[in-house]
């Protein structure tokens, strides 16, 4: 484990110890399951964002994809598709959204920040229009199927762990991952060597959208219903925070999947802990904001100190 990842571990341990002392219910299995469920979505969106950030891009639409994929699935299911196929069809829609993000970014030269923000709002709008702003119940609540796809207590976190392995291997062990780093680290050199940098980018947008859409459906099946009332930014930003607090650079070229997982654990513990110790709702966001700043500053400062010691 590298030093920048170690910092997050230390800050997270500190927070865990604090919440444990503040409220004895923190260590119960039920609560740990709750934390794991928070972590899963932060982590999966975070893994996708690591790939995108390494490219030097950003994806603000992943939260909207997370929220709208259960709706796609619901619409397919109500139109008569079996649930398994509805999930596959919804995943294909999510992949398509990622492809649109990527293609507009690389071919029309629009900043990915703006493209994905626009797509974020457009998706929110589509869900509102199609749902008539009415909450619906999710299908797939019973049987073995449901245990695997979200309803099982550890289902979402296991899916997240599986995606972590796959995306980590993709980034660090395959040719494609090396090309992601090359594209983000020195786009000219990458293109000069014959890497198809645009294609690499489009694929990464497809990957983050597919992953976010899948975990979105699992969470919706777990909760049992979806309501169309939020725009997705509150969902995607924790993913980006998880990636960056974990040590991924916003400037491109550098990213760590393990760091994003640790960042997601940090955020999950924070979210759950504040709820558990009953922080006044008005104070919640202030406390969360301050803790994120503390983690980030500690990360950078400790890195500087470590560098001095090494010399």
């Amino acid at each position, binding site marked *: 484990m590298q030093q920048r990842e170690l910092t997050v571990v230390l800050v997270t341990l500190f927070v865990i110890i604090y919440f444990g002392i503040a409220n004895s219910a923190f260590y119960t299995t039920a609560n740990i399951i709750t934390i794991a469920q928070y972590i899963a979505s932060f982590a999966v969106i975070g893994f996708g964002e690591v790939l995108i950030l390494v490219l030097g891009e950003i994806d603000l639409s992943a939260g909207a994809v997370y929220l709208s994929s259960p709706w796609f699935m619901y619409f397919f299911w109500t139109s008569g598709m079996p649930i398994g196929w509805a999930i596959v069809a919804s995943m294909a829609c999510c992949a398509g959204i990622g492809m649109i993000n990527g293609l507009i970014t690389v071919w029309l030269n629009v900043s990915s920040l703006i493209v994905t923000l626009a797509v974020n709002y457009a998706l929110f709008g589509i869900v509102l229009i199609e749902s008539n702003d009415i909450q619906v119940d999710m299908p797939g609540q019973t049987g073995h199927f449901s245990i695997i796809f979200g309803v099982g207590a550890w289902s979402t976190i296991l899916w997240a762990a599986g995606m972590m392995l796959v995306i980590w291997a993709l980034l660090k*062990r*395959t*040719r*494609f991952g*090396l*090309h992601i*780093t*090359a594209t*983000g*680290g*020195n786009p*000219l*050199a*990458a293109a*000069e*060597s*014959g*890497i198809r940098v645009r294609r690499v980018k489009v694929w990464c947008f497809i990957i983050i959208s597919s992953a976010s859409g899948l975990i979105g459906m699992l969470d919706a099946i777990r909760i049992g219903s979806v309501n169309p009332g939020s725009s997705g930014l509150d969902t995607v930003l924790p993913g980006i925070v998880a990636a960056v607090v974990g040590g991924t650079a916003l400037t491109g*070229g*550098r990213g760590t999947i393990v760091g994003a997982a640790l960042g997601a654990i940090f955020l999950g513990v924070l979210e759950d802990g504040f709820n558990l110790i009953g922080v006044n709702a008005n104070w919640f966001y202030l406390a969360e904001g301050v803790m994120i700043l503390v983690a980030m500053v500690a990360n950078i400062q400790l890195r500087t100190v470590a560098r001095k010691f090494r010399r």
Partner: protein
Amino acid sequence: MTEAESPLVEASPTRDATLAASDVVLETVGLTKRFGAVVALRGIDMHLRRGEVLGLVGDNGAGKSTLVKILCGFHPPDTGKIYVEGKEVSFRSVADARGLGIETVYQDLALVPQLTVAQNLFLNRELTMFGGVGWLSAGKMRKLAKSYLEDIKVEIPDIDAEAESLSGGQRQAIAVARATRQNAKILLLDEPLAAMGARESALIVDLVKDLSRNRGVSMIVIDHNYTHLFELCDRLNVIQQGHIAYDQQVKDTSVEELTNLMVSAYRRELAAGQQLLEQ
């Protein structure tokens, strides 16, 4: 000027006598190029032999970079012919030129700072295993990278070091090594010794000499710095106003002679300009 007065001039073995015409790897005949009203090249006849290091000298705007951009496939010439190993060729792209073994090495553009030495050496030519999934054979690439760098006598302390942590000279050496490892036979080097200390320069000079003498790699070097050119090159071509005005072995010329040549050309142009103004 004698050798003693210019210690940087290292005599290179005479090639003219020993090399046959078939050893010309690159030849151009009557290359011209204009950009709108500006005539950049007025008919370049030049040649490059196997294992030769040719320096291009010339003021800004003389046509050096246009010539190099034509040779690396970036610009097509308006007229004239290019021969690679005796065969007439026409490049439509940088990739075409690269396919024929002609590669440009840029110091800062070439490497990805966040990738290791080995990863940079194999960039987009990675070795993989398990069929189509693209799983990297990292160990094999490290081993090959190490032995290749040893072969060409480039000393890099750590093959797993990120390019970012290397010195400018080491990065330049890696960029050159990558091009030659990927079978480049003709390298175009743009100011390869720019912004380097003595030790760094020595690393690149040794590499250039080793590749040209022992591996038959031919190189064209553009540099404004005569000292650098005399250190690196076997032969010099001076480009003035879009054609080759002077062609001489390094051992038969001197920094002084070149300077005089450039200054007198400058004075001629100045005088011509004044005459024009007076008319």
